[in-house]
C-alpha cells in the first residue's frame, strides 16, 4: 500500500550516455496515489513496459528516482520492493498444485505454515480458485493461470502495488470481461494501487480511473477517461483514443477563427496569433461533426463510405486530401457524393506542433 512518486525517471537500454532521443523512457515526473487504478496505454514500443519494469525493479533506471511513500526504493531489488506483477503470459510453477503456487511467495519469505494456509484459503476464495487448490496448475486454462499469478501477488499482505503487463492478451474474449470485473472488485476491496499496462483502449478506459497515455517514450497525457476523450492534450491521444479517432486537419488559426482552404470555422475560445514557426492543426472528434447537405456556408467534403456501427453511423469523407470522419445524424440520408460539415465549436481544439493550445475564453 503506497503512493508512488516518479522523480525525473528515465531509462535507456543503451546506457545513460545514449542520445536523449534513443531513451526508451524519456524523463518523467509524476505521482500515483495510494489506492488508485492506473492504466498505462500506448502502442507497442512506447515505453510502457519499460516504465512498469522500472517500478517493479526488474530494470534499474538510467536516471531518476522512484519513491514509495516518500522512501527512495530505486536501489532496492525486486524482492525488497513488495511489488506483485502479473505478466503477459501466465507464469505458473509447473510441478506445483494451485495451492502450492499460491503459497510459494509466503514460503520463500519464511511465513509460518498456519498463516500460509489461512492466507492461501482466503485468496483462493476471492479468486474462485478453491475447487482447484489441489489440482496441478499446468492443467488449468489460461484465465485460471492468470488468476493464480495474480493470487501469488495478493497472498502477501505487504504488497505496495500490483502491476499488470497486458495480462489479458491470452484470455478468451468472453472471459476478459469477467476477469476485468474481478480486478475492479479486488481493487475496491483491497484498496491496492494497481498499474495496468495495455495497448487496448477499451481495457484501459474500463479498468482505470486514471489513464496515462504514452507515446514514443513520453507520457503525453494522464487523466480520467473523460478528460482524454474531451480534451486530448496531444494529437496522438486524440487519434489513439476513440474509435474512429480524432480528426486532425492543418489550419490557419487566429482569434476565434480557424481557416481550412479558405473556409472559416468558428472556435469557442480566442487563440490570438499563434507562432508561425509551429505546425498548426485543429482537432475534432467525429462525434462532434455532423454531415449535412452541401451548402455555401459549410466546409465541403467528398463522401467515401458510411460505417454503420449500429448505434451510430459515421461517414468517412475527404476534406481536400485529408481523411475525415463525421457523424451522420439520425434519419439523414445523403443526397449525393458530397456533403457539408457542421462543426460543434465547443469541441474543436487547436494544436501547435501536436500540443494542445489553451485559448482564452
Amino acid at each position, binding site marked *: 500500500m503506497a503512493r508512488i512518486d516518479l522523480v525525473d525517471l528515465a531509462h535507456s537500454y543503451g546506457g545513460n550516455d545514449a542520445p536523449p532521443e534513443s531513451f526508451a523512457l524519456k524523463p518523467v515526473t509524476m505521482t500515483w496515489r495510494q489506492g488508485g487504478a492506473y492504466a498505462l496505454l500506448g502502442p507497442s514500443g512506447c515505453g510502457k513496459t519499460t516504465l512498469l519494469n522500472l517500478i*517493479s525493479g*526488474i530494470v534499474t533506471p538510467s536516471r531518476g528516482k522512484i519513491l514509495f511513500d516518500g522512501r527512495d526504493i530505486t536501489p532496492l*531489488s*525486486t*524482492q525488497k520492493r513488495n*511489488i*506483485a*506483477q502479473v*505478466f*503477459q*503470459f501466465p*507464469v505458473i*510453477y*509447473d*510441478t*506445483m498444485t494451485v495451492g502450492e503456487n499460491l503459497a*510459494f*511467495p509466503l514460503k*520463500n*519469505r519464511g511465513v509460518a505454515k498456519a498463516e500460509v494456509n489461512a492466507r492461501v484459503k482466503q485468496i483462493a476464495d476471492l479468486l*474462485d*480458485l478453491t475447487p*482447484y487448490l489441489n489440482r*496441478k496448475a*499446468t*492443467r*488449468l*486454462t*489460461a*484465465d*485460471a493461470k492468470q*488468476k493464480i*499469478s495474480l493470487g*501469488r*501477488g495478493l497472498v502477501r499482505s505487504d504488497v505496495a502495488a500490483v502491476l499488470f503487463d497486458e495480462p489479458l492478451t491470452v484470455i478468451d474474449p468472453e*472471459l476478459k470481461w*469477467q476477469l476485468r470485473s474481478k480486478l475492479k472488485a479486488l481493487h475496491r476491496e483491497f484498496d491496492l494501487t494497481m498499474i495496468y499496462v495495455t495497448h487496448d483502449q477499451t481495457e484501459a478506459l474500463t479498468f482505470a480511473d486514471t489513464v496515462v497515455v504514452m507515446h514514443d517514450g513520453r507520457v503525453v497525457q494522464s487523466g480520467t477517461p473523460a478528460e482524454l476523450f474531451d480534451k486530448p492534450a496531444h494529437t496522438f491521444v486524440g487519434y489513439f483514443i476513440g474509435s474512429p479517432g480524432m480528426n486532425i486537419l492543418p489550419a490557419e488559426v487566429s482569434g476565434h477563427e480557424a481557416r481550412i482552404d479558405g473556409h472559416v470555422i468558428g472556435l469557442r475560445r480566442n487563440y490570438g496569433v499563434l507562432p508561425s514557426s509551429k505546425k498548426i492543426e485543429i482537432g475534432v472528434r467525429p462525434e462532434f461533426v455532423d454531415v449535412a447537405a452541401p451548402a455555401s456556408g459549410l466546409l465541403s467534403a467528398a463522401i467515401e463510405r458510411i460505417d454503420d456501427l449500429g448505434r451510430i453511423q459515421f461517414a468517412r469523407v475527404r476534406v481536400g486530401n485529408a481523411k475525415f470522419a463525421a457523424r451522420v445524424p439520425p434519419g439523414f440520408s445523403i443526397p449525393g457524393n458530397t456533403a457539408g460539415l457542421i462543426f460543434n465549436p465547443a469541441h474543436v481544439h487547436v494544436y501547435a506542433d501536436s500540443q494542445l493550445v489553451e485559448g482564452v475564453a
Partner: protein
Amino acid sequence: MDKTVNQKAWFLVLPVFLVVAFSAVIPLMTVVNYSMQDTFGNNQFFWNGVGWFKELLDPSTDLGGRFLASLGRNLLFSAIILAIEVPLGIVVALSMPREGWSVAACLVILALPLLIPWNVVGTIWQIFGRPDIGLLGYVLNHLGLDYNYVSNDVDAWITVIVMDVWHWTSLVALLCYAGLKSIPDAYYQAAQIDGASRWAVFKAIQLPKMNRVLLIAVLLRFMDSFMIYTEPFVVTGGGPGNSTTFVSIELVKIALGQFDLGKAAALSLVYNLIILIVCWVFYTVMTNAGSERPAKEGVA
C-alpha cells in the same frame, strides 16, 4: 469408369523393398538363422534350436555366465556415468553465460569432445593414463598414488568412467542449456518477485522446464553407454582380466575371437531386444509427459 488394372505400379515399390530387404531384413534373418545353429568352422552348421538362448539366460553355463556378468558390468557402468554426467551436465549448463561472446566460446569448447572420433578418445586416454609416458598416470604415481589401469580393476574402471564423463558430459550440458534458454524471462522475474531463492528457482522453474531435454539426455546417454565398445576396448581391451569387458566387447570376442557364430548371433538378438525395450519404455514415458494438456473446462 472401370479401374485400370496396372500391375506395373508394383515396380515403383520395388526399390524401397530391395533397399529395406538388403539393409535390414536379410541381415537380421541371417542372424536369426545363425542363432539357431552351431558351427565348427568350414561352413558346417548344425541345428541347435533355442539352445543358445537357454544357455544365455543360465548363469551356470559358460556362455550365460559371461553374458550375464558383462551385462551386469554394463548396467553398473551406465548407472555410474548417468549418475555423474546428468547432474554435472546440469551444473555446467546452469553456470554457462546467457549472452555475449562467451556463449559462443563455451559452446565451441563444450562441443570439442563430441567431435573427436571414439577410438581417438580411447587412444588419448590410453596414453594420458600410462604411468610411464602419460601425463595423468605419471603425475599420479609421482604423487604417491599407485595408479595403473592395466593391472588394477578399480583403476581401469575409474579411467573408463572418467573418459566417458569427459567425452559425453558436454552432450548433456548442451541439451540442458537449450532447455534453459527456452524458459521465458518472465518466469525468472516472477520468481524474483515471489522472493524465491536460487535453489527454489532451480526446483520450481529450471528443473521442471528441463524435464523433457533431460529425458532425451538420459535416453541418449543410456543407449550409448549400454552399447559402448570402442573406447574401453582401446584403453583396457576389456581387462584387466574381464573387469571392463562390457556386452559389446564380449560379443566381439565370441563372434570374431572364437568364431562361435551361433552363440554370438543369439547374444546379438538378446542384446538388441534389451535396447529396443528400454527405448520403448523411454518413448512411452516421454510421450506421456508431453500429453499433459490443460483441462477444457473454464474456471470463472
